[in-house]
């Protein structure tokens, strides 16, 4: 998976590149709009992360140039200007998503994965599995090691999100927006409580734990045994 980062702020650019590389992506970094547009036209990128405020061409102009050149790949905007007009403009021009600076890196990673997954429509599995945990989407039933687990509707949705994106660190804000449709930061620890309760139901009494806390980032669903092999 190849990602192009167009970012003029040296520190931000370097950290984004390092972070995404360490997350397993191939990354290129462009320092201004012209270079970004040039690279984007030559390389085949699965995602372009585009800063709005750039020297030379700004982010909007780069996006316009890309769409004119027939490059339809997903574009994620980074904007420091938390203004409604900017969002509207970006989405009208065909940006696929945007993040307002400052953002959590885990959030960027999660959104980037979502955007890149969009292109590849996989078969809708009826049953999701990790280790000995099974989630039957049609019958809305969860079992672990053959034992039935009673979940509320929201707990089911939460577990489904974890299973669909197993191995990915999910930030709290993403969980809140995907499961509860709450698109703003709350100063409460609602998500932590909800996950704690889900953990009690699926991990308590089992040797291997599935849901893990990634400090400072969020939560991840992983089978320790699978990882070891």
């Amino acid at each position, binding site marked *: 998976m190849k990602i192009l980062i167009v970012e003029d702020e040296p520190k931000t650019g370097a950290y984004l590149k390092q972070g995404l590389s360490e997350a397993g992506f191939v990354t290129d970094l462009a320092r201004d709009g012209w270079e970004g547009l040039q690279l984007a036209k030559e390389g085949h990128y699965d995602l372009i992360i585009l800063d709005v405020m750039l020297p030379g061409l700004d982010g909007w102009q780069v996006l316009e140039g890309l769409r004119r050149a027939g490059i339809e790949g997903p574009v994620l905007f980074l904007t420091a200007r938390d203004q409604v007009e900017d969002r509207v403009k970006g989405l009208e021009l065909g940006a696929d998503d945007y993040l*307002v600076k400052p953002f959590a890196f885990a959030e960027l990673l999660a959104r980037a994965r979502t955007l890149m997954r969009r292109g590849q429509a996989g078969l809708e599995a009826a049953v999701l599995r990790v280790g000995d945990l099974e989630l039957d989407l049609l019958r809305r039933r969860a079992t672990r090691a053959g034992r039935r687990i009673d979940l509320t509707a929201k707990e089911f949705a939460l577990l489904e999100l974890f299973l669909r994106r197993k191995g990915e660190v999910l930030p709290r804000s993403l969980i809140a927006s995907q499961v*509860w449709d*709450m698109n703003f930061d709350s100063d409460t620890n609602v998500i932590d409580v909800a996950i704690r309760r889900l953990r009690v139901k699926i991990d308590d009494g089992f040797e291997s734990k599935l849901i893990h806390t990634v400090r400072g980032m969020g939560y991840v669903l992983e089978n320790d045994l699978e990882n070891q092999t």
Partner: protein
Amino acid sequence: MEAHFEEEDHHELNGKLDLIQNLFRHASSQRELDRLPQQLDDALVGHHGLAVVVTDGTGNIWFATSGADFPHRLLQVCQARPAACTEETLHQWQKNGVSNRGIAASITAGDGTPYIVALVQDIQHHELFMDTFRSLLGIAIALAALATASLGWAVTRWGLSPLRKVTDTVAGISAERLGARLPSAGLPAELMPLATAFNAMLARLDDAFRRLSEFSSNIAHELRTPISNLMTQTQVALSTARNSDEYKEILYSSLEEYERMAQMVGDMLYLAQADNGLLRPGLETVDLSSETTNLFDYFEAWAEERGVSLLQTGSASVPGDRLMLRRALSNLISNAIRHTPQGHTVRVTLETPGDKAVVVVENPGPEIPAGHIPRLFDRFYRVDPSRERKSDGAGLGLAIVKSIVEAHGGVLSVTSANGVTRFQLTLPMPGG
């Protein structure tokens, strides 16, 4: 005036002409004709400035009053063009700086002899009168204008003196001296509403400025604390060699601090947008009861863990922005849950009395002291300044609620009595 004199002169000359004509008409014998000059003299005596000349058919002067040399010109005109010589035509001319008016006419004596009579009136006295009249009128007008102007100036000055006082006060007001007020004593009734409105405006400005400066110092304070934490922590961390777990721990601790700052900056930006009128709510229909249900769903686990139950009654829909209203409700509900003692219930009641929707979020718990109520929605305002920062966000939640409600044209109010704190959100519901 001029025309009036002209008409008067014409009339008078015609009168004299009639008189002369009459005398001639009755003179039917030579003897009577011979007596005519004497009769004419008698008739015309005492008429100052009037000259009469009579000529016979051949143009010889038959009679002339003394000093009547000037009507000759008139007679010449008459002989040349008899048609112009009727009593209807008033001639006017100047000679040697003297203005004259005259008429000429053909008359017939009693025996049928034709004569031409010219009467000329010296109108110098009219001119004199007109001149005097003109200059008098000019002086009078000038005096009247002067009097009007000075009187007007005095009256205006006197009438506007309260306004000048007001102006002086207003000129002395600056951002540093917003405490000044207009003196209401001694103002005329017309200016009282102005002064009252102006003072009210000053009070609002004063309040807004005070809040703004407090806001600025609060921002500085709120940012200084985490920044100084981060600096100290980093300096301590760097002061000696540590193992990687310890570094990791320090980075995690920093991350938490950064996240809190980022959220605070995000909230402040949101409020700044509200201040600049950039929060423009959409106008979809928002079902407040289903929003409340969703929020209860979201907060359920958290509330349950705190031993707080949630109860919802009633329903209401308003035109507005779903995301913004949800955020406002979320802040109120999380705030209520946070301040409810274990074993108690947070109630959300929706009502639609008349053309508005009323949302009440109430929770039992410690009352908010009355002194804090008016400032509860101020940014960074905390009832308990010593309260642990982590549990209470940055103190911007209620300010955001207020901004959202006001962007929707609604009103947010709060009461706290009898062990119950009650936030009421009133939203307009046009046509509802």
